[in-house]
C-alpha cells in the first residue's frame, strides 16, 4: 500500500514538473509584462505606475496600446517585420529545399558530413557570426575591397545598413532551421515511391510535384514556422546590419525599453507581437501533433 501511494506521489511530481516550469518561467513573466503594459510610464524606480494605487483601487490604462495605433511608426514596423520575416522564410525555403534534397539523396558517408557542415556554424556564437558579416559587408570590408582591387567597381557598394544586408543576415542565420526539418521528412521517404510514379507514367518533374512535395509537406511547414517565428522578432540582425529603413519590431522593442525607458509601451509592443505569433505557433504545434500521430 505504502509503495503504491509513494508511486502515485512521484508520478504526480513528474507530471507536475513541466507545468511548474512553464508557470514560473513563462506564465509569470507573461503576467508581469501584461501588467506593465496596462500601466503609465513614470520617472521613478520602477519606471511605471503600480497596478493598485494608494487607496487600493485598480489603476489600469490602455494608453500604451492606443498609442501603438495612433503612431503610424508601429503599424508600419509590424507590417515591415511581417514582410521581412515572410520574405526571409521564402528565401530560406527556396535555398533550403534543394540543399535538404541533395543531402537526403547523397551517399550515407557524405550525408553525415554534409549535415555536420549545416550544424557547424552553431559552434560559434550567433553574435560573432553577425559581426563577421559586418566585416564582410562594410564599405571597406572584404567584399568591397576585393571588388575594387579587381577593378570591377570604383566606389564601394553600399552593402551594409540596407534591407539586403538584413535579408542576407536572416537567411544566413536561420537557414539550418529550414534545412533540418526538410531533410528529416525527405530522408525517410521511400525512394520506390518516385520510381513507382515514373513507372505509372509520371515525368520526373510530375513525380516531384505529385509525390515528393506532398510527402515533404510536414517538413516544409515545420521549417517555415521555425524560420518565421524567430525572425519576426529578430533584434540582432536588423540592429547590426540594417539601415534606417529596415525597421523591425524587435529593434523598436529594444529601443522602447532601453533607450526611451517607456516600459509600458515596450510591454504593449511585446504583447501585440506575441498575439501575432500565437497563430503560427498553434499551427506549428498542430502540425507536429499530426506528425507524431502519423509516426505512431
Amino acid at each position, binding site marked *: 500500500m505504502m509503495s503504491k501511494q509513494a508511486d502515485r506521489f512521484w508520478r504526480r511530481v513528474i507530471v507536475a514538473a513541466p507545468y511548474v516550469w512553464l508557470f514560473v518561467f513563462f506564465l509569470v513573466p507573461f503576467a508581469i509584462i501584461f501588467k506593465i503594459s496596462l500601466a503609465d510610464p513614470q520617472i521613478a524606480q520602477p519606471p511605471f505606475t503600480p497596478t493598485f494605487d494608494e487607496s487600493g483601487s485598480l489603476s489600469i490604462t490602455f494608453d500604451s496600446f492606443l498609442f501603438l495605433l495612433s503612431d503610424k511608426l508601429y503599424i508600419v514596423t509590424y507590417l515591415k517585420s511581417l514582410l521581412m520575416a515572410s520574405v526571409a522564410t521564402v528565401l530560406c525555403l527556396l535555398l533550403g529545399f534543394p540543399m535538404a534534397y541533395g543531402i537526403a539523396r547523397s551517399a550515407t558517408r557524405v550525408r553525415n558530413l554534409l549535415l555536420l557542415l549545416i550544424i557547424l556554424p552553431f559552434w560559434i556564437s550567433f553574435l560573432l557570426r553577425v559581426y563577421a558579416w559586418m566585416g564582410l559587408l562594410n564599405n571597406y570590408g572584404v567584399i568591397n575591397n576585393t571588388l575594387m582591387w579587381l577593378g570591377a567597381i570604383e566606389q564601394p557598394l553600399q552593402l551594409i545598413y540596407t534591407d539586403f544586408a538584413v535579408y542576407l543576415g536572416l537567411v544566413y542565420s536561420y537557414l539550418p532551421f529550414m534545412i533540418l526539418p526538410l531533410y528529416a521528412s525527405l530522408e525517410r521517404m*521511400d525512394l*520506390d*515511391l518516385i*520510381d*513507382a*510514379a*515514373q*513507372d*505509372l*507514367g*509520371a*515525368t520526373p518533374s*510530375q513525380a516531384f510535384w*505529385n*509525390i515528393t512535395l*506532398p*510527402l515533404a509537406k510536414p517538413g516544409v511547414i515545420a521549417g517555415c514556422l521555425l524560420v518565421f517565428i524567430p525572425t519576426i522578432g529578430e533584434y540582432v540582425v536588423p540592429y547590426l546590419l540594417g539601415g534606417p529603413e529596415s525597421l523591425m519590431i524587435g529593434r523598436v522593442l529594444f529601443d522602447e525599453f532601453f533607450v526611451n525607458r517607456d516600459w509600458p509601451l515596450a510591454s504593449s509592443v511585446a504583447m501585440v507581437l506575441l498575439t501575432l505569433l500565437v497563430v503560427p505557433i498553434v499551427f506549428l504545434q498542430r502540425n507536429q501533433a499530426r506528425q507524431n500521430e502519423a509516426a505512431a
Partner: protein
Amino acid sequence: MADGTGFIQIRGVSKHFGDFVAVDSVDLDIQRGELFSILGGSGCGKTTLLRMMAGFETPTSGQIFIDDVDVSHQPPYQRPVNMMFQSYAIFPHMTVEKNIAYGLRKENVARLEIESRVHAILQLVQLDDFAQRMPDQLSGGQRQRVALARALVKQPKVLLLDEPLAALDKKLREQTQFELMNIQDKLGITFIVVTHDQEEAMILSSRIAVMDRGRFRQIGTPKEVYEYPVSRFVADFIGTINLFDGVVETVDGRIATVKAEDTDVPLNCEADARLCPGDKVCVAVRPEKIFISKNAPDDPDDTALKGVVEDLGYFGNLSLYRIRLPGGKMIQVSAQNRHRSAERSLDWDDDIYISWRARSAALLLE
C-alpha cells in the same frame, strides 16, 4: 532490329556498376502471355535485370525489345511496362482509389473512363469496399492487391513483379499465388516475376530462368529445371539433392556406370550421347527418388548402397532420413508416409539399403 522470336527479347544485355558486373551479357526470349520467373539468390543480378526492363537502369550494353520496339533507352514513363514493387510503393498520401487512378491520370484518360476502369480492377482484386481507405488502414495482403491493381489498371504489355509475395505470411502467400495465376490467366498479360523463393517460382511459372552471378544458368519449365538440371549449381540451388562426384567408367548402351569418390559401388545412370569413359561428372539424385529397404533390391540396373540411419525426421505427410554411407557421406532420403502406424518401420542406427533407378539419377557435366 529485333529478329522476331519473342514478345520480349533481351539481347546481350550487360550492366556494370563500376567494376562490379551485375548482369553479364544475358540473352532471353519471353513469349506473349507467359508467366516467367527469374530465380536466384540475393545479388545474382535478377533485380537489376528487372529494373532495366522497367527503365530504372540503362544497360551498359545490349538491347531490350518489347513487342518489337527497342526500349533500351526509353525512360520508365514511356515504356508499355508496369512494375509491382517489393515494398509495394503505395503512395501514402492518396486513397486506394487515387493510387490506382494515378497512372491513368498521367495518361490523360477521360475522367469517366478512369472511374470505370478503376472500379473494374478493384472488383478483380476484391477491394471494392476499400476504395476510399488510406493505405495505412490496409492489411499487408490488401496493400499487395492495391499495388497489383495499380499496375494492372494501365493494361501494360508486360507486368514486372519484384518478389511479389515475399512480404506476406505463409498462408496468405499460398492463397495469393493462385490468385495471381488466375488474374494472369484472365487478363493474358505477360508476367515477369523476380524471386529468390524456388517454391514460388515452381508453382507460379510457365518457365523459370535460374540466375547466378549475372548470368542465366538454365532456362526451362519448372519440371525441366527440377528433374533435368544442366549443372551442379542448378541442381543444388533448386530443391534438395544428393551429389556424387566421380568419373565415367563404362558406357554401355543406355546405361553408364560412374565410379564415385564416396563409394566403391559403381553408380548406374542413364547414358548421354556426349558421354565418354574417363569424363569427370557428377551424379545427382533427389531425396524422393531414393527407396529405403532392409533387404538388397534385386534389379541389376538399380544402384543400391548400404547405409545406416543416422537421423530421421517425421513431418506428418513425409519422413526425412539422413543415411550415412560406409565412407561417411550423408545421403538425404524422403519417403511418403503412406500407411498409418504408430510404430516406426525404421529406427536410428538401423542397417539398411538405399537404391534408385538408373533413370532417376541426373548426370551433370559441369
